[in-house]
């Protein structure tokens, strides 16, 4: 299943983006469809409001909201004061870096992670059958693998930050960073 991953800076600017489409065997074309490719940044940025809200919650808790309609940002778009909605259930409550699933959009799941410096790591998980027809089955997210993936990225990000020539908020253009992220994606997200 394909993923779209981005690191969002303090001003809502992407400092790194990548698309992962893992090929298994001789299956072809497992990536996002073309129109979805173009939509991905919008979908991702639409979830930033929810992440902003969760960022300062004492317990970014998994609420009991079970939103069955997968119509994404529906009409009753209200964020409860006790916790975000649509969160995945088995997120460890005491961990407020990894937020788990924060949003969804037509069957695509969106997970997020916030670093100590307020950088937002966000990822859209697509379905493997994201061809022409919009599949209605929502993506199941393996929280443990996802959390490990984000933590590894976090570590890589800090290493980038240790470069005295790198300014916070600049795009990360290092090919090493890119290739490391991709190999991590293969390791943790290849399902």
């Amino acid at each position, binding site marked *: 299943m394909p993923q*779209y*991953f*981005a690191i969002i800076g303090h001003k809502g600017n*992407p*400092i*790194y*983006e*990548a*698309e*992962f*489409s*893992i*090929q298994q065997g001789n299956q072809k074309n497992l*990536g996002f469809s073309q129109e979805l490719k173009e939509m*991905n*940044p919008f979908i991702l940025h639409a979830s930033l409001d929810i992440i902003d809200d969760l*960022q*300062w*919650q*004492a317990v970014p808790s998994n609420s009991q909201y079970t939103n069955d309609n997968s119509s994404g940002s529906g009409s009753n778009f209200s964020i409860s004061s006790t916790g975000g909605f649509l969160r995945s259930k088995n997120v*460890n409550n*005491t*961990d*407020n*870096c*990894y937020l788990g699933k924060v949003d969804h959009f037509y069957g695509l799941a969106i997970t997020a992670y*916030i*670093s*100590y*410096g*307020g950088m937002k790591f966000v990822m859209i998980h697509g379905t493997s059958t994201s061809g022409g027809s919009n599949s209605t089955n929502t993506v199941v997210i393996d929280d443990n693998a996802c959390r*490990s993936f984000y*933590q*590894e990225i*976090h*570590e*890589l*990000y*800090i*290493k*980038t*930050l*240790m*470069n*005295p*020539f790198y*300014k*916070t908020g600049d*795009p*990360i*253009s*290092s*090919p*090493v*960073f*890119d*290739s*490391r992220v*991709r190999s991590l994606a*293969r390791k943790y997200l290849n399902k």
Partner: protein
Amino acid sequence: MEQQIIYPSTSDASFKNRSTGYEYTMGPKPSLPDEYMRSPLTSKLYSESLNTKKHEISLSAMTFLFQEMISQIHKNCQSLNDFETKLDKYGESIGMRLSELLNFRSSISPGTSSRTSTFLSSSPVVNTTSTNTNTNTNTSSSMNSQPGNGPNRSRANTGTSSKDTASSVSTKSNRTSTDRHIHHTQSQQAQHTQVESLTSQISKMRRRDLKIIDILQFVHGTLWSYLFNHVSDDLVKSSERNNEYMIIDNQPPLTQFISGSNNRISCDYFICGVIRGFLTNAGFRCKVSPHLMPKDNWDNRTVYLIQFDNQVLERETIRFGQS
């Protein structure tokens, strides 16, 4: 004519034709079909461990550097305000890096650090530094202790964060000295690929600090320990204004050789910048200013006054009831 932009990280010849990094004008790159066949690229920066290494900088070296910084700024500044802002900026870039680094290090569960010893330094010198036994001493255990540690601070570990990445740890100390050099450089490439990340040692990430008092405790304890090897001497909340907090250092190590009690220039703005960068990056916008307040035997006793923005207080009131 096309102009070639030089990126320090990409100008390395070994990356040519292999991969290009993220280019924000192009958007995300899709995965390439043959990608999984390639091994990930390596570089020194990304192969180093983020774990704590005990590297203390001698105070004289640090003061020498600091002195150069100050005279450099002094030459270029227009006014007193300009001088302070520039010095503050220097500190800020360190502070914001530390807010990520120190929190991440605190997440590493103690007692597991010995596994990082697979790292090889790429310098040919095989130093016999002992393995990274648990050096994560800066965690909250030392947070509440308030020792009156006095004038015997001879060393300042004032960490310009880049120093950490440049330091190296090697465990292969038993090599024979002959042609060690060649062996080392050959094996280096292979070793780099199997670098173990610290994430495997983290069972639970440290919580992000959401309250003012929590993050100030972290500054008072962990940040101060990292910079100066001791916790700060006091952390006080102002009784008059509720957005003001004070961190007190009886004897600032960095500026202890700068004389002039009637001097209007304060070089403590550097540390102020570190504090400000740390707090601002973590989402607590504030202003920090130093104030010289001699008391008892401490002639250089400095109070770092932290004034948080209103938005921080408002957020705290909304989220946590009372500020």
